[in-house]
């Protein structure tokens, strides 16, 4: 049923339709509304049978999810930012053990400086953990991806993280066509574990593995991720046949077939980029978009094919590797190996910095004219950077730079007024 509701609420409703048996999460902005709403559903009995377990930290939340999943329960959790970092050891364990937990990541920046707003630093921090990472463009896709995530996780015995932009999606109220219980049940069979702690048929899970087999065990986990590259499109097609919606899959190209310039991105910024591309198309520019839905596993072959005819590839990403540059761009460059396309990286939207359509358009214009630097920070205030660099050069004890920058901003604002 099509409803106008908050993204978080749409996720809570959809997760409930997936019949999780154990939900264990610790609240953190911007994830809180999701788990509050699920908590209410468990308490009022509309989500049953399900146990909502209150714990003291994210580390406990993931640890309980691991235990629940190993005991054969369908387990769900959600977190963001520092919460994800706090549970990171258990995040790796969930993947290493091959436990099909589903987690919503309400993408948020990582401190310091402390910042509650959206970017993709949290997701990037665990990209090598062995979790499948799917990025949603809209709240509709975020909701739909959760249903697909349980199916994918349980079929492959791999945990799946659904990444949705914190605040931008979680707190946006927009139309979402919520599935009904019958449709979800038809798509998502009950959980049949590949491994389970069963007193009648005891096994141990979590062996210590030495040098004699560690590489093989890790390689098997890698192969399972590669299996996901085949399976993700299959379940997306099945989902589309059932609902009529194109949610999920590996990639989402938009006006890319005949495009000279293709902008690659993850998540909700794709909407703004599509508007920019339509506008530039009206002006005669041959521009297209490539949305990456499956970031892990990374669909190298699909990306290669989608970018095959482009002469310019611009990767817009809401995170970066300090001292290096783009994270997504590095992966994309593996897909364009041997191609003559010029690849540039644009870092944008860090810590909730708004990404404006006009900034995207002028950046694409620069790229077309060959003026875009290999690594660009969108809308960077060069003055702030120069003044702080000068302060640091002037004196040894220049002080904490976040505070310096804020003071500088305040002074500049007062000077103007």
């Amino acid at each position, binding site marked *: 049923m099509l409803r106008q509701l908050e993204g978080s609420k749409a996720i809570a409703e959809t997760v409930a339709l997936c019949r999780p048996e154990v939900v264990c999460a610790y609240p953190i902005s911007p994830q809180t509304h999701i788990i509050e709403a699920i908590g209410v559903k468990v308490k009022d009995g509309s989500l049953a049978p399900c146990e909502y377990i209150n714990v003291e930290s994210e580390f406990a939340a993931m640890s309980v999810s691991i235990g629940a999943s190993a005991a054969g329960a369908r387990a769900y959790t959600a977190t963001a930012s520092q919460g994800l970092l706090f549970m990171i050891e258990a995040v790796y364990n969930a993947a290493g053990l091959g436990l099909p937990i589903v987690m919503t990541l309400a993408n948020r920046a990582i401190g310091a400086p402390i910042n509650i707003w959206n970017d993709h630093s949290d997701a990037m921090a665990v990209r090598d953990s062995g979790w499948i990472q799917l990025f949603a463009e809209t709240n509709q896709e975020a909701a739909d991806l959760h249903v697909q995530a349980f199916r994918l996780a349980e079929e492959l015995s791999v945990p799946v993280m659904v990444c949705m932009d914190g605040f931008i999606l979680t707190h946006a109220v927009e139309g979402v066509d919520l599935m009904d219980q019958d449709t979800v049940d038809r798509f998502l069979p009950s959980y049949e574990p590949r491994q389970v702690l069963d007193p009648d048929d005891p096994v141990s899970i979590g062996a210590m593995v030495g040098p004699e087999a560690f590489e093989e065990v890790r390689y098997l986990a890698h192969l399972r991720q590669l299996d996901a590259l085949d399976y993700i499109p299959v379940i997306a097609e099945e989902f589309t046949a059932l609902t009529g919606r194109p949610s999920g899959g590996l990639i989402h190209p938009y006006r890319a077939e005949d495009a000279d310039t293709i902008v690659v991105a993850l998540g909700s910024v794709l*909407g703004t980029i599509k508007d920019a591309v339509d506008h530039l198309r009206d002006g005669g520019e041959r521009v297209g978009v490539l949305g990456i839905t499956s970031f892990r596993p990374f669909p190298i072959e699909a990306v290669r094919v989608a970018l095959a005819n482009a002469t310019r590839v611009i990767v817009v990403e809401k995170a970066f590797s300090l001292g290096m540059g783009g994270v997504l761009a590095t992966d994309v460059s593996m897909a364009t190996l041997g191609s003559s396309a010029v690849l540039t990286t644009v870092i944008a939207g860090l810590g909730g910095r708004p990404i404006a359509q006009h900034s995207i358009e002028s950046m694409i214009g620069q790229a077309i004219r060959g003026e875009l630097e290999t690594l660009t920070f969108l809308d960077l205030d060069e003055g702030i950077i120069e003044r702080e660099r000068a302060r640091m050069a002037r004196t040894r004890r220049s002080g904490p730079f976040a505070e310096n920058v804020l003071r500088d901003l305040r002074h500049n604002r007062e000077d103007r007024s």
Partner: protein
Amino acid sequence: MFQVRIHGRGGQGVVTAAELLSVAAFNEGRHAQAFPSFGSERTGAPVVSYCRLDDREIRTREPVMAPDAVIVQDVTLIHQVDLFGGLVEDGYVLINTSRTFEELGLDDLGDRFRAERLMTCPATELAIEHVGRAVPNAALLGAFAALTGQVPLPAIGVAIRERFHGPVGDRNVAAASAAFDHVTREMEAAARASST
């Protein structure tokens, strides 16, 4: 696309107002996107929310930078916050007050924007009268419906009742209707004055 920016303070239902407006438009078969200005909201702190209305899918995720309408729920924000920044030339201004633009020190708005699109409405007074509490958001949505014609009043009523059940919903709907009538009368009076 029609874009609305709502200014108020934490606790005045600024975020709820944007959400209710989006639900009203949605119920009319339109596309709508409402979202808050993602700050660390605290009671009394300046808060901004946004709502976009369109007849086609809304894809953009940028903040509303050039609103077609600005709603001000709290006059103490005047001269504190850039309330009218980016407002388009033929945009609407709706302020919750029983005073006039002149009394608020906002005479210059008449030079920048179309006078017939600048409106005040004593929404807090109407809320106290009908709801029994100083919550002006529902009343302002009624006033917005009258001023802009973007959503019909009954759709606002349905959205309010979806959110607030029973007598609370009824009272908020009454406040919205009273504000709608107030603005309609003001507009008719202004139209008569300008035609004579």
